[in-house]
């Protein structure tokens, strides 16, 4: 199997950057999951879709818009009516979901190559993301596990809160390098560490 290449390679510089003298405010990491898959239900079939996702991933998706769950290895969250992004560090999720989601439930679309996954964590994660996105990152408004679809100018992003101070971002691959540069720029003020 061929190695998958990241679009960030030329700009991904591990180490500390920006104003980190007093400790880096955030940590940035490209997580490179093996599978990023969209599962989408026909109207009325959302519960069966969630059940199928649970069967494949073991993640119990709460109901409601943007609801999600993550267990460190796998993650899933709703980002649009009937649509769920399901992520697995392993390859092969699309095929498994296709097997579980019959055509009367919905569709499965493999986006593993098409989205780049970036994790931002640390005390200043909310602050740095607030520079780019016009959504409320406070825990009360954006609880752990939940997902959001939003954008920074031309760049769409799906965001899941995967910890008290941790967010996973999924952006279009072709924009990823520009986005990464922008994210680093936003993080420089508080200092950042690229893992």
């Amino acid at each position, binding site marked *: 199997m061929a190695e998958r290449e990241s679009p960030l390679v030329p700009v991904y510089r591990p180490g500390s950057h920006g104003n980190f003298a007093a400790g880096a405010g955030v940590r940035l990491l490209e997580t490179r999951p093996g599978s990023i898959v969209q599962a989408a239900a026909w109207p009325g079939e959302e519960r069966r879709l969630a059940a199928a996702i649970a069967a494949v991933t073991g993640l119990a998706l709460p109901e409601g818009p943007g609801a999600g769950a993550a267990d460190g290895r796998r993650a899933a969250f709703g980002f649009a009516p009937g649509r769920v992004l399901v992520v697995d560090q392993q390859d092969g999720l699309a095929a498994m979901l296709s097997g579980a989601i019959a055509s009367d439930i919905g569709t499965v679309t493999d986006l593993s190559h098409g989205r780049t996954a970036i994790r931002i964590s640390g005390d200043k994660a909310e602050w740095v993301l607030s520079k780019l996105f016009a*959504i409320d990152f406070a825990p009360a408004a954006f609880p752990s596990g939940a997902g959001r679809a939003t954008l920074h100018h031309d760049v769409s992003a799906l965001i899941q809160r995967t910890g008290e101070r941790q967010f996973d971002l999924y952006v279009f691959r072709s924009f990823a390098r520009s986005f990464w540069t922008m994210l680093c720029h936003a993080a420089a003020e508080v200092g950042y560490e690229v893992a």
Partner: protein
Amino acid sequence: MLIACPYCGPRDVAEFTYQGDANRPRPDPASTDLDAWNDYVYQRANPAGPHREYWQHSGGCRSHLLVTRNTLTHEIAGVAFVRSAPVPATKPAPAAPRKRPASRKAKP
């Protein structure tokens, strides 16, 4: 301006794409009534006051929303998914009978 997407919650207008007047019934696809098509494609009510209009949450969940917004104040009175509140597919219901432009038949 904030639009309260029924899925995503209130979001900045920058996340949305305006899709215009929601009071334009699309003629039956097979219809060849050019007047009806002209009405649908080119004519707009353009009211000063409450306006029913489509917005797509293109920077979010990508749903099309039916928004009632006052064009004088920008106040938003209601937002719903278009899918759950579709407009009548074919029946035009203009408030007043439409006046045909007098120059319609004249050719320059």
